């Protein structure tokens, strides 16, 4: 069961390389593309970031002052016949944690379009990212892409996923069908990284429930539609879990590590949003089977996020808009839940200053309903000049209970400053 030294990460890079080469070859072979490319666009961003962890580390080897360089260029080529190719690589260099130094392909896909009467179809082939969901704190239904956890503990950064993605958009709604032939492993911090367990997660030790391992073809489908004030989606997924179950194991060198185990799961998802004036009412719910619970037993479960937001516009006659957010996350496994959202309340406020710099501040807390654990978060974004912007972030972890899944990160509150150049 234990994988060889080559590692899944290395294999995936090779696979991605082949896929991109194939797609580029396809672009060049297209007679229309050879005769003329209608439109080329190059854009992206370069950033520098510095994180500071004021508390001394909980686990040996961890650093406290990582700095990073981040590059996210993007190339878009459109042929005269109307199809296009998008390539968006990603690279981060981290000064402290070699595992956080990583490259990925966020997008490398060809897009084909067609019309069928009043309806329209779209086919995307290649590496892409797909977002499903409506809430802000915990996107349960969003299952297509793997989480790039070394990027940020908020679980919102995603890795590219190889897929065939067919969309049929008609007046009666939108149907999407996805086939995903290669599974991506979740990323985890290395020895010098913060926000981790005492033992390292070793991707080389990964095991899969499916005999096809990471080559199992996962499938997903979604129907979504807008009816007046309601936007809703119903989704289904059958394939390899994005979330691993972590099992302590011995590495070849005798050290203890955590071996990720990826189960075969089935998930049904529902998401909906009602937009009523300044009110947004939101729901995401899933039913999932095939996963191991925290005790390592298979347990089907349901989970939902229910919440809403209300906006106060032009507060006190100024340009400031304040949006208040509340979301309640519930997982019916309770303490057997494998996520940080077992029964938690998210409260937040978004301040949009509507100035020339586009200044925005988001402050929030995530509070466990069954214990005192609290996560405070503040994020400020502001443009410094037309091409330069500033990002400040602070995350404070407080009163983490030893039974809390975040307990091992209890000393990992941090502040981060980042400057981004966009081109």
């Amino acid at each position, binding site marked *: 069961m234990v994988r060889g030294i080559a590692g899944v990460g290395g294999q995936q890079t090779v696979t991605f390389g082949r896929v991109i080469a194939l797609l580029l070859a396809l672009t060049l072979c297209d007679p229309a593309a050879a005769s003329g490319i209608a439109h080329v666009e190059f854009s992206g961003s370069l950033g520098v970031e510095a994180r500071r962890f004021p508390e001394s580390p909980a686990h040996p080897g961890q650093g406290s002052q990582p700095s990073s360089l981040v590059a996210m260029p993007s190339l878009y080529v459109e042929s005269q016949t109307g199809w296009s190719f998008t390539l968006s690589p990603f690279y981060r260099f981290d000064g402290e944690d070699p595992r956080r130094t990583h490259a990925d392909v966020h997008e490398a896909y060809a897009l084909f379009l067609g019309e069928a009467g009043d309806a329209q179809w779209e086919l995307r082939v290649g590496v892409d990212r797909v977002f499903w969901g409506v809430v802000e704190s915990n996107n349960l239904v969003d299952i297509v892409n793997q989480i790039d956890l070394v990027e940020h503990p908020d679980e919102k950064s995603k890795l590219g996923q190889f897929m065939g993605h067919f*969309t049929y958009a008609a007046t009666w709604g939108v149907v999407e069908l996805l086939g995903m032939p290669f599974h991506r492993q979740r990323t985890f911090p290395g020895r010098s990284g913060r926000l981790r367990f005492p033992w390292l997660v070793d991707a080389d030790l990964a095991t899969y429930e499916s005999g096809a391992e990471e080559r199992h073809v996962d499938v997903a489908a979604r129907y979504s539609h807008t009816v007046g004030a309601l936007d809703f989606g119903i989704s289904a997924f059958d394939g390899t879990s994005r979330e691993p179950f972590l099992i302590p194991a011995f590495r070849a060198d005798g050290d203890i590590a955590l071996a990720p185990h990826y189960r075969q799961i089935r998930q049904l998802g529902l998401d909906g949003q009602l937009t009523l004036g300044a*009110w947004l009412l939101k729901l995401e719910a899933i039913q999932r089977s095939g996963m191991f619970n925290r005790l390592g037993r298979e347990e089907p479960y349901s989970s939902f996020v229910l919440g809403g937001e209300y906006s106060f516009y032009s507060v006190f006659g100024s340009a400031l*808009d304040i949006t208040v957010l509340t979301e309640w996350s519930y997982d019916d496994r309770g303490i057997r839940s494998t996520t940080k959202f077992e029964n938690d309340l998210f409260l937040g406020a978004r301040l949009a200053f509507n100035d020339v710099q586009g200044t925005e501040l988001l402050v929030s807390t995530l509070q466990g309903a069954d214990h005192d654990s609290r996560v405070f978060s503040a994020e400020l974004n502001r443009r410094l000049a*037309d091409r330069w912007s500033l990002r400040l972030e602070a995350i404070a972890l407080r009163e983490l209970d030893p039974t809390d899944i975040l307990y091992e990160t209890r000393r990992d509150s941090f502040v981060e400053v980042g400057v981004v150049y966009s081109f």
Partner: protein
Amino acid sequence: MTSNPFALQRIAHGLAAIIPILLALSTGASELTEAEQKGLDIALEARAKKDGFENFTASQVMVLRNKQGRESRRALRVKVMEVDADGDRSLFVFDEPRDVQGTAFLIHGHTDKPDDQWLYLPALKRVKRISSANRSGSFMGSEFAYEDMSPPEVERFTYRYLHDEPCGELTCTVVERFPVDGKSGYSRQVVWQDTEELRLWKVEYFDRKNAHLKTLTVDGYERYLDRYWQASNMNMVNHLTGKSTVLTWTDYQFQTDLAAMEFTQTGLRRAR
């Protein structure tokens, strides 16, 4: 005689606009005064002149200037589609500032209820349905409010004709219009349109306290498809803050092969 393909549509639009007003009148709603009727007639006539364009695409550059003269640029592309008997559908795609490049904004305008709006955030590849209640907020930090950016549907206002007066070489009809929506940032607007083509030349905006907040001046009109007059320059000056925004339109193209499905959430995800 060849029939004008737009004529029927124009009549249909005219009827669609007049019917609710006739209904309102017949159900005992307060009768319009002569000045109110004339103001409404001018608005309906101005709309009839714009009907039948089907769709257009254009580029916009906004230059935001603060009191000290410091400038900031916004660049976006706009696609607008006409919808029978309802508000237009608009799609905005941002090119500058570069940190929001690729962000796209879809509006399904309505004449009888609040607009539907969606925002596409390229970094997350996420489409968000957003509230359209924020009528008076600033569009991208400019002096244009959201309600100034959406086409002024006839049903959004009540009207009162004031007088005619010379404006440059033309004669302008001056009409006061009052927003129906209580969320509008304005108590009233005074609108100058020339009597020949009902092109808009100037709008004075009065805030909720009836103070003269902003003035919009418009010029550089060009005619497309022999009948649609479009302005090239719009200059919005805020009298309270001393800030201004110049909005320049270029690359107008009418009756393109834009599909209606471009103005959907799927189209929004793909917008460039």
